[in-house]
């Protein structure tokens, strides 16, 4: 036995950045179980083959767009409408990409390409929350390990949960419906974004217009709501400026 002296307490007590990322990701995966299961069950009953519908998990890696795309496909919408609706739903990822970029400047380019694939609402929220903390030392390698830990955990978890939903979603008891899991999940993603008048205006107008237009076919209500909400946000933001 050799005596190595005192180890720095921080290195013993504090888990690595990768472990912290994985833990953050696991917490989100747990929270996403109802939504992922409900989505998987919905994917299995759309008329599109179950395997094709589930392949939206690795291809799109974003529940809201997956739901919209597969529902529109099942409704027989033209390809252009399906692509346009899903891209509008995912357009917020542009914002996440622009917002995360300053934190990723020290990452090797190939890891930024990989990191982009893992960029989705909860991973973005975990990463920016962690990188903005006062005790974050700004070390690019540690930040990258945290991001990859959270993103990879979310990716594996999401594919597993939606796969499980496809396989066993139909067996869930009717007394425990899951239709509200998706809107509640989106609500929890929406709330932290309401940071001022402009964001509130975008959300209120976007939500009400989408509700008023919800009778329109082929996801057009969503597109109308999103466009009106963005317009209201720009107007309110211009007045605030």
């Amino acid at each position, binding site marked *: 036995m050799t005596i190595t002296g005192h180890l720095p307490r921080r290195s013993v007590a504090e888990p690595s950045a990768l472990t912290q990322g994985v833990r953050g990701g696991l*917490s*989100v995966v*747990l929270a996403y179980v*109802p939504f992922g299961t409900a989505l998987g069950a919905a994917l299995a009953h759309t008329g599109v*083959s179950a395997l*094709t519908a589930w392949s939206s998990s690795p*291809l*799109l*890696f974003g529940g809201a767009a997956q739901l919209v*795309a597969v529902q529109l*496909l099942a409704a027989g919408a033209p390809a252009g409408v*399906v*692509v346009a609706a899903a*891209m509008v*739903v*995912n*357009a*917020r990822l*542009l*914002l*996440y990409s*622009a917002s*995360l*970029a*300053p934190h*990723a*400047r020290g990452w090797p380019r190939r890891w*930024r390409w990989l*990191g*982009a*694939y893992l960029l989705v609402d909860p991973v973005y929220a975990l990463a920016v929350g962690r990188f903005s903390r006062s005790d974050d030392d700004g070390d690019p390698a540690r930040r990258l390990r945290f991001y990859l830990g959270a993103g990879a955990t979310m990716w594996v978890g999401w594919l597993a949960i939606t796969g499980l939903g496809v396989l066993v979603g139909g067996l869930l008891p009717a007394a425990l419906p*899951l*239709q*509200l*899991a*998706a*809107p*509640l999940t*989106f*609500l*929890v993603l*929406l*709330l932290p*974004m*309401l940071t001022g008048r*402009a*964001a509130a205006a*975008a*959300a209120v107008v*976007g*939500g009400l*217009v*989408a509700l008023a237009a*919800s009778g329109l076919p082929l996801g057009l209500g*969503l597109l109308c*709501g999103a466009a*009106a909400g963005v317009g*209201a946000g*720009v107007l309110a*933001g211009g007045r605030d400026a």
Partner: protein
Amino acid sequence: MRELAILVVIGLGTYLMRASFLVTAGTDPPRALARVLPHLGPAVLAALVVPSLAAPRGHVSVAETVPSLVAALACWLLWRRTARLPLALFGGLGVWWLCLGAVSVVGGGAP
């Protein structure tokens, strides 16, 4: 095969949006886009949330809409109080089930 091809196109387009600024880290978005970007998240998510809360199972009615609004309120309160995502989501879902059960009892078992 058509469905898979459409999903691949969406996946590629989505990946390009994800990679846009992250890969070129250092370039700022054009001014016109920078004005719109902050409002995309709230507008799109609210456009998804509000109709789904008003009609969680496809139609608006007191028996359907009130329980989902109560559940949304519970979810919001839990999230604000605890900032714990699993607690807020499972709690909101639990409140929805309780409200649906109560509505069913009051309405004599009618869904």
